[in-house]
């Protein structure tokens, strides 16, 4: 799916640099050098926005800082361009890290405002600190060795720019194939799901800002040989806005989006309509407005969406539960027979949200290798308890132990690393990754692709790599999410209403899967479920939660005639309890 975009992008970059040089058009050659520098920055912005979910309106400041630093070191201090290049990138990295700091505290457009502030103030500060930056006069840097045209009309600068831009595109595509890239996208789409997969979103935000700063910094350092002159007026806030515009207009998240976006927004007003002079700004605004009205998902984004709609009817290899269930390797996994040891112990758990007491003094023990059902009416605190155990919510009082060790003060991603897995009420399946990648995210936690589950499913790999999960039916998404959790090698599984939305037949299959996980793989399972039939069918033990308290507990047969349980079936508990 993404490959044609990558090819298109790289071809666009290469042709735009080589062709004008061959034709000897100094104008287009220069324009496309600038355009490709901007494309590089926009690719980084795209990665930051779409892959890491970070809104930055300040990338122009990073670009400008790298360029200015390179200019100072090379042009004012007289060191070589190499030194300036390195210094420029280093400066961009420092500012990138400064951008990442607020990202730990604020997100979304608020983060946008913070970075926008930096972009507004940046050129003013360049002027204010003129003793260092040469202020308003700017810095002239002549690098004839780099800028003179060589073979086929190409200078070293144009080769460097071409290599950088292509590397940025390739790097972005490659990042998406790596575990880190996958984790980044997971953390951006659903931070809580990410944490339960052992991912620390804050760290990935830092990484994303750093990578973006690196790419933007290289582009900024290359600005110096391309323009030969650095001055504050080139790095006004408009530039930062332009980068953001380009990504959206091209299509946020699409590999080729930045190329198309920059071409349209830079070339249409500045080159194609350049003669219009004062009408140029109008053209810029109209182009952006019309594209958003005609292509709400950006140019490439809307094309991709249309193509995908056409592919909707394509055949897809279903996720075959039987294949997993019959796997020989899997059957050998169950090393230890169920012991009486407690896998999860909750003691005196208390949690309050504003006026609502969600958990009041909950005690719960889940034996290793067993399925423990947790039932109760809506709003009784079941999901809160799951969130507490999986570390997404901090307790007000009491504690949680996993295998005897206190866990309630550890963050979710640490618990995941310790072998705790969970699923969510709506399956957290990541739409913009292939089905296979969705599975790999699980295995990523163990740092290996050499996972028995992946081996067992190897024969599905071609089909699952080519297909995105948005074509999967709900039940299959549920299975996929569960398999992904299995791929993390978690030994304690928390399932949050897994049967919701499944048909009767699908529920039966899912019950088989739960039993398989317990009997063959020796997993401990805490099952929150409204479908009491399912719970009674698979659970070894059941706790009933109501208004934040455990009101009944026992083996299924023991508690079936408990009035609280009867009430659950009829719903009478809701009013009686309050």
């Amino acid at each position, binding site marked *: 799916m993404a490959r044609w975009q990558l090819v298109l992008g790289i071809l666009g970059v290469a042709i735009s640099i080589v062709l004008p040089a061959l034709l000897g058009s100094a104008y287009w050659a220069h324009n496309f050098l600038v355009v490709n520098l901007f494309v590089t920055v926009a690719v980084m912005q795209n990665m930051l926005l779409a892959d890491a979910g970070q809104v930055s309106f300040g990338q122009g400041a990073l670009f400008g800082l790298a360029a200015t630093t390179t200019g100072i070191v090379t042009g004012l201090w007289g060191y070589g361009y190499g030194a300036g290049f390195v210094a420029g990138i280093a400066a961009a990295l420092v500012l990138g890290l400064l951008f990442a700091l607020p990202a730990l505290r604020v997100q979304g457009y608020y983060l946008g405002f913070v970075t926008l502030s930096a972009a507004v103030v940046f050129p003013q500060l360049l002027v204010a600190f003129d003793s260092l930056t040469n202020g308003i006069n700017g810095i002239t840097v002549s690098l004839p060795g780099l800028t003179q045209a060589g073979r086929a009309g190409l200078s070293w600068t144009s080769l460097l720019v071409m290599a950088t831009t292509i590397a940025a595109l390739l790097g972005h595509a490659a990042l998406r194939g790596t575990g880190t890239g996958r984790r980044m996208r997971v953390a951006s789409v659903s931070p809580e799901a990410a944490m339960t997969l052992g991912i620390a979103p804050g760290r990935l935000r830092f990484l994303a800002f750093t990578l973006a700063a690196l790419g933007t910094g290289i582009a900024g350092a290359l600005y110096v040989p391309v323009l030969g002159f650095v001055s504050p007026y080139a790095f006004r806030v408009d530039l930062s806005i332009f980068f953001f515009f380009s990504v959206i207009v091209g299509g946020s998240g699409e590999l080729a989006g930045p190329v198309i976006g920059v071409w349209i927004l830079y070339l249409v007003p500045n080159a194609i309509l350049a003669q219009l002079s004062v009408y140029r700004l109008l053209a810029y605004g109209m182009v952006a407005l019309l594209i958003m009205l005609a292509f709400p998902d950006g140019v490439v984004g809307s094309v991709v969406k249309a193509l995908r709609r056409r592919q909707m009817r394509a055949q897809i290899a279903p996720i075959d539960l039987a294949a997993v269930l019959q796997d020989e390797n899997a059957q050998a996994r169950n090393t230890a027979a169920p012991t009486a040891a407690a896998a999860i112990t909750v003691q005196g758990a208390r949690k309050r949200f504003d006026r609502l007491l969600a958990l009041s003094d909950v005690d719960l023990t889940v034996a290793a290798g067993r399925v423990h059902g947790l039932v109760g009416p809506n709003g009784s605190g079941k999901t809160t308890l799951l969130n507490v155990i999986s570390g997404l919510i901090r307790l007000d009082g009491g504690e949680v132990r996993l295998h005897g060790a206190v866990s309630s003060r550890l963050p979710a991603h640490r618990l995941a690393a310790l072998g705790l897995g969970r699923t969510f009420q709506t399956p957290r399946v990541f739409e913009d990754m292939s089905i296979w990648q969705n599975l790999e995210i699980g295995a990523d936690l163990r740092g290996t692709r050499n996972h028995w589950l992946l081996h067992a499913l190897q024969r599905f790999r071609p089909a699952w790599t080519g297909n995105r999960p*948005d074509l999967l039916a*709900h039940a299959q998404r549920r299975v996929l999410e569960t398999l992904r959790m299995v791929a993390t090698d978690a030994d304690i599984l928390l399932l949050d*209403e897994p049967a919701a*939305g499944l048909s009767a037949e699908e529920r039966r299959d899912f019950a088989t899967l739960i039993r398989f996980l317990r009997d063959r793989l020796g997993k401990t399972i805490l099952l929150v479920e*409204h479908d009491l*039939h399912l719970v009674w069918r698979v659970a070894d033990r059941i706790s009933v939660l109501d208004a934040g308290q455990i009101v009944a507990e026992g083996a*299924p047969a023991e508690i079936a005639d408990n009035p609280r349980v009867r009430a659950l*079936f009829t719903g009478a508990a*809701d009013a009686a309890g309050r």
Partner: protein
Amino acid sequence: MLRVADLHAGYGRVPVLRGIDLAARPGEILLILGPNGAGKSTLLRTIAGFIRPTAGRVELDGRDITGTAPEEVTRAGLRLVLDGHRVFPRLTVRDNLRLGVAFRGRQFDFGTIVAPVFEVFPILRDKLHAQARDLSGGQQQMLALAQAFVAQPKVLLCDEPSLGLAQALIPPILAFLRRWAAQGTAVVIVEQQIEVALDIADQVAIMERGAIQLAGTAAELKRDKRVQEIYLGLGERGEPLMP
């Protein structure tokens, strides 16, 4: 009257409703029963236009309103009272009521139109100028119902009106709905308080896993053995629950 035919819907890709057929006639109360997660709320939200159905048809007085925006559905005369006593917390009781009637224009006298409400729920008159967030849960539910009442809909959908209410409050609220229906409104209630609710209902439908398992008049269903077992707690121990 409200007619729903072969309705399918869900949240995103999660199917919740699987071919629902039902009808609600003026003057009658249709009670929809079912365990948590059966899709009752989804059904009401789909009828009211909040969820776009993937298939099927919703008709109001013979007019197709499938996929119509919720505000237009309300204006067409079908009013949903959301679950969890959803009122506008930072507005006063009076303003909440005024908003309920707002779309009907200005030719209505506020006093006349809310009089029947205050008769049933005098507490609302006492707290007329209090902010809704300062009301108790039960009072908020009364307000939510009153807000729907002043709109004078042809069809009223009510999602768990008794949820979170003190026991003593439930009968008057249900009685209010009964009287309301008697004026010629078709009322659909999703309820878990079946002992009480069954008594005021004319028709009953039982939902499980997104489909209607059983439907009939209240009298018929009261006699049905399976309903007695499961929903009225008259059955044997847990056994029938495990197919």
